[in-house]
């Protein structure tokens, strides 16, 4: 029994890492730039389809598809940002919500048209399959890999924002765009690049998550609320908060699906409501 519990716990953690990878970009763009991008899940889905297409049509190895998914989604998001989103920065949240929800439905329809509605397969390389014993516990190697990638990305994002000159430029541009501009920071460019990195991470999460999250055209709608829970419970713009919230959400969702499948989604939303009542600004969010 305990072994099952621990295994489910670990699976939940791996699932949480995927939620983190996908949500962190959303947390940053919503928290720092104040832009409500509900089409974020579509970027993750795009990353998943980039990976499966490369693997199936061109025989590209799984590990190689990951950086490609990151880069292609990042590039595509820059185009979307420059062409479409830039016009919406000064609009109200309702305009942003309608616009990005519209984009989400367009992406769902577009992908269905190209790939059909069915689940995309993924074959993991042999060395990521199977189990390994960790402190006496049998865990899936791929899930261990996901946890490692998630922690690495979290560390890289924290260090990038807190310790690099580019991170300081992001913080300055968010603090006071007029002054940042006056001192020579290209605020629009900094925001676009930040947005691209966040979208690229979503693409990476989408590619890594094909097996666990599943990949169908309904992906951006199916998971949108979970991503928003991670952002909101974690606290807008907080990397550590998003990581913590993603793990909590992942574990609870996995536990309830396993042990209480009939009321699984009831519990996850009840927990969300409770957490937000307890800490309205998120687990690690700053009080404003």
């Amino acid at each position, binding site marked *: 029994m305990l072994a099952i519990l621990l295994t489910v716990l670990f699976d939940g953690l791996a699932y949480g890492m995927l939620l983190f990878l996908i949500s962190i970009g959303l947390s940053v763009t919503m928290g720092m730039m104040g832009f409500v991008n509900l089409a974020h899940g579509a970027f993750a889905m795009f990353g998943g389809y980039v990976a499966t297409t490369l693997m199936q049509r061109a025989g590209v190895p799984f590990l190689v598809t990951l950086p490609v998914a990151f880069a292609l989604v990042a590039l595509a998001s820059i185009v979307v940002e420059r062409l479409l989103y830039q016009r919406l920065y000064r609009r109200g949240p309702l305009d942003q919500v309608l616009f990005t929800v519209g984009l989400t439905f367009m992406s769902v329809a577009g992908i269905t048209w190209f790939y059909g509605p069915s689940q995309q397969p993924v074959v993991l390389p042999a060395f990521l399959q199977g189990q390994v014993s960790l402190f006496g516990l049998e865990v899936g190697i791929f899930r261990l890999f996901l946890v490692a990638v998630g922690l690495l990305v979290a560390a890289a994002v924290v260090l990038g924002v807190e310790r690099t000159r580019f991170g300081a430029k992001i913080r300055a541009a968010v603090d006071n765009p007029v002054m940042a501009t006056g*001192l020579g920071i290209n605020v629009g460019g900094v925001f676009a690049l930040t947005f691209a990195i966040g979208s690229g991470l979503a693409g990476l999460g989408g590619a890594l998550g094909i097996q666990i999250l599943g990949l169908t055209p309904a992906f951006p709608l199916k998971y949108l609320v979970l991503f928003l829970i991670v952002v909101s419970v974690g606290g807008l713009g907080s990397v550590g908060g998003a990581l913590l919230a993603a793990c909590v959400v992942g574990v609870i969702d996995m536990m309830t699906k396993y042990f209480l499948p009939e009321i699984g989604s009831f519990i996850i939303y009840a927990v969300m409501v409770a957490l937000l009542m307890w800490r309205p600004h998120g687990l690690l969010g700053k009080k404003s």
Partner: protein
Amino acid sequence: MSTAVSPAPAASAAGDTPLLRLEGVSAGYDRAVILEDINLTLAEGETLALLGRNGVGKSTLIATLMGATVLRGGRMQWRGGDLVAVPAHRRSAAGLGWVPQERWIFPSLTVRENLAVTARPGKWTLERVYELFPRLQEREDNMGTQLSGGEQQMLAIARALLLNPRLLLLDEPLEGLAPVVVEELVRAIGQMTLDRDLSFILVEQHARQALELTSKAVVMDRGRIIYDGASDTLLHNPDHLNQLMGFA
């Protein structure tokens, strides 16, 4: 004393292209036009006091130089080139160093990051600004907003110096500071411009101090320039100064 715009300034050492020349500039914010028909010339190495009562448009003029307002008309030339064509985020690289009235220290950055994030190579280095303001070095790991008002002002000036500008735009740097701190800053401003390749525009409501520090003066009223002449002349004619400043 002329109340009209003064004739072209004497040729500077660098040639006879002025550092800055505004012709018929009008500018403002989204709805309001604040500045009207501003004409102004500053030669290389010259220093200018920008005077006037509250709300006459001094800060708006400074912000207009930085590209932070809506320009409605007129021409702005910077070292012979068109300043209007330079995007706002390139104006610091062109040589403008902005110290805004609100100071606008970045709260999420440490003191050191505030200085380093936009620093450009040149003779003003981190060591040199720390020499000028030793207090900043002592507090370099503090967050920007943990500083006192005077320290924030020093940080704003140091941050602008690290851009290695040719023209420093000091918008009421002495406002609201204790007399000791004012003395310290005045000394620092005097020290900064010992080398003649740094000019500044000093916005002040307390005219005397500004006139003593500068070679030229401009007085504004309701968005227009109503006096343009030598600082000395105004300094030695307090009645005229009071009249211009609306105290008469």
